[in-house]
């Protein structure tokens, strides 16, 4: 699919050709035969509709970018269910997100009712985790509103409280284009949730939009680094002087490519990127696989302490769980030094990214649900579950998955791609190519043009509101009065799941340790 036809070029050609043909037929009508004017009229209409799509309507990125050719997509989509049913794949087959999951988000983002009829299309055999309701649901007004405060354990003056259990997970300016960053940040602000800046260095556009930001420090520490990749204290202090930045996230690893660094090729280092990321122009810059300060448990915890002491705002870490024994060791190290990150964000192996080697994307890391369960269990076993918070990310894009993550021990959930879909992502899988047709992961101004920041930011807010609505309804149905009371007993976990395996495994491992 990728690159075979450049839809952008084709559509540009079509957008030129349609009015040209109208003129041509007109000339034919005048000089050859009046019958040509049947075509003239048709093409004048097409031209008008096309201009409307390209320049007047703002709701549909694809139509704004590609015009009437983009309409073909809506048409094909409208006959899609039939085509798939009879010819190709069904609604639950596409990956990473199938049509049912995607259209659920599109509906939430547009703020339309998402009731469905006749029955579920999902499986009820032995492969899907389901949620248990209570015989005695509670009323909405009996539920305590959600609230979670980061840094309360350390008694921080600048502790940070969220009132909805959602955050926008790390996506850098670089992976995202300017318009996408602005729409997400503005939407997050509208919805009252924080947004993670990703490891793109100084979050210039995020800060221009305002709202609550979590600054992510990647392994290359873009924006706050010395030339050797170590932390530059002064740059970090300068950065957090900006009020928008509420928390710091030290990224140890991410689910899409755990244990893997990266390379920022010199061709990609424009003047702007070099300034935002504090890297020189004209040379490749390496993102190491780990922070150079962190070579083992002890040094990692020391580094967390250094950042915490320096910034005096909540500092969390993000990681993808590999070996649970290693995870247990680092928790013990935290206990030994009595230093805890203000949150631990667990990223599942199913996580997405702009670009990662296939082997890592497909093969590395522990799947999310098993990882949250393990992290929560280990923290609880070690008696320190109350010293930190657990965040979770990895395909947590709809209410059910999010509820399951919370039940397994997460305190709040993060998503990157859920919010991309709400922005109008159509899963073209071109994030690394700079040719995103939805104008999200591209810097091409012509493609970004279709993404109307104001229009799409309300979609982000709608999406969050839809999720929150579901969340409280689900709490009520499960008879839960406060979000922190959600636990694994509210789940039905079939024995065929990865989670079920991990539960067995951890029990065994705990008895050995």
């Amino acid at each position, binding site marked *: 699919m990728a690159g075979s036809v450049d839809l952008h070029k084709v559509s540009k050609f079509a957008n030129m050709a349609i009015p040209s043909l109208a003129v041509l037929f*007109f000339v034919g*009508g*005048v000089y050859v*035969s*009046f*019958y040509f*004017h*049947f075509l*003239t*009229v*048709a093409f*004048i*209409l097409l031209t008008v509709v096309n201009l409307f799509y390209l320049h007047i309507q703002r*709701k*549909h990125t694809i*139509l704004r970018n590609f015009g009437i050719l983009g*309409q073909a997509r*809506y*048409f094909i989509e*409208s006959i899609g269910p039939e085509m798939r049913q009879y010819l190709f794949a069904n609604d639950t087959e596409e990956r990473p997100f199938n049509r049912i999951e995607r259209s659920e988000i599109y509906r939430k983002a*547009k703020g*339309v009712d998402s009731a469905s009829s006749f029955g579920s299309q999902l499986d009820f055999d032995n492969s899907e985790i389901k949620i248990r309701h209570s015989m005695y649901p509670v009323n909405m007004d009996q539920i305590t509103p959600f609230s979670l405060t980061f840094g309360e354990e350390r008694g921080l003056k600048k502790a940070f409280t969220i009132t909805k259990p959602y955050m926008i997970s790390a996506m850098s300016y670089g992976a995202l284009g300017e318009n996408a960053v602005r729409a997400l940040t503005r939407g997050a602000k509208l919805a009252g949730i924080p947004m993670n800046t990703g490891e793109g260095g100084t979050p210039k556009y995020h800060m221009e939009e305002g709202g609550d930001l979590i600054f992510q420090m990647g392994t290359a520490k873009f924006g706050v680094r010395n030339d050797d990749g170590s932390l530059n204290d002064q740059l970090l202090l300068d950065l957090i002087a900006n009020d928008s930045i509420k928390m710091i996230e030290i990224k140890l690893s991410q689910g899409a490519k755990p244990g893997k660094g990266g390379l920022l090729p010199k061709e990609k280092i424009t003047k702007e990127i070099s300034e935002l990321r504090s890297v020189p122009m004209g040379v490749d810059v390496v993102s190491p696989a780990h922070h150079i300060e962190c070579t083992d448990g002890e040094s990692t915890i020391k580094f967390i302490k250094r950042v915490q002491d320096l910034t005096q705002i909540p500092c969390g870490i993000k990681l993808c769980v590999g070996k649970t024994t290693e995870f247990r060791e680092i928790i013990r190290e935290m206990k030994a030094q009595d230093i805890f990150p203000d949150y631990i964000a667990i990223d599942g192996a199913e996580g997405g990214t702009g670009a990662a080697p296939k082997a890592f994307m497909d093969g590395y890391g522990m799947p999310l649900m098993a990882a949250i369960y393990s992290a929560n269990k280990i923290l609880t076993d070690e008696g320190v579950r109350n010293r930190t918070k657990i965040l979770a990310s990895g395909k947590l894009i709809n209410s059910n998955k999010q509820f399951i993550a919370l039940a397994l021990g997460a305190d709040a959930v993060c998503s990157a791609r859920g919010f991309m879909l709400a922005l109008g992502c159509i899963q073209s899988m071109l994030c690394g190519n700079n040719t995103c047709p939805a104008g999200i992961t591209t810097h091409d101004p012509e493609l970004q043009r279709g993404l109307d920041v104001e229009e799409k930011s309300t979609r982000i807010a709608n999406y969050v509101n839809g999720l929150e609505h579901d969340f409280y309804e689900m709490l009520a149905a499960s008879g839960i009065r406060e979000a922190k009371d959600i636990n694994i007993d509210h789940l039905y976990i079939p024995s065929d799941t990865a989670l079920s395996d991990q539960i067995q495994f951890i029990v065994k491992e705990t008895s050995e340790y």
Partner: protein
Amino acid sequence: MTKSTHLLSWFLQLCIVALLAPAAYFKLTDHPESIELFTDLDMEPTGRYVIGFLEAIACLLLLIPQAIIHGALLSLCVMMGAIIAHFTKLGFSEMFSFAPILLVILAAVIIFLRRSQIKSIARMLD
């Protein structure tokens, strides 16, 4: 649609039918003036019958509740053709030469009022 836009739309539909129906009738019944017109356009007689037929269909559709929007689109197209004819060949010698312009405007207003009924657009508006 609110009640008042609904009424307005029907009023405009009837206006179009009132102007278009006689035009269709004259074309299909070989009225000498129609024949003259289409001779000028070099479309005698096929073009006259085709256009007359399309005009008649448009009138009909404009009166069928489920098809109004299509009737409006069809009249818009036919009248755009008429405008082109007057501009390029026939000129604006008589009062009724301006009728197509009026009709295009009326049809456009109807389409605007009923835009949510265009299926493909309606899908995108939700």
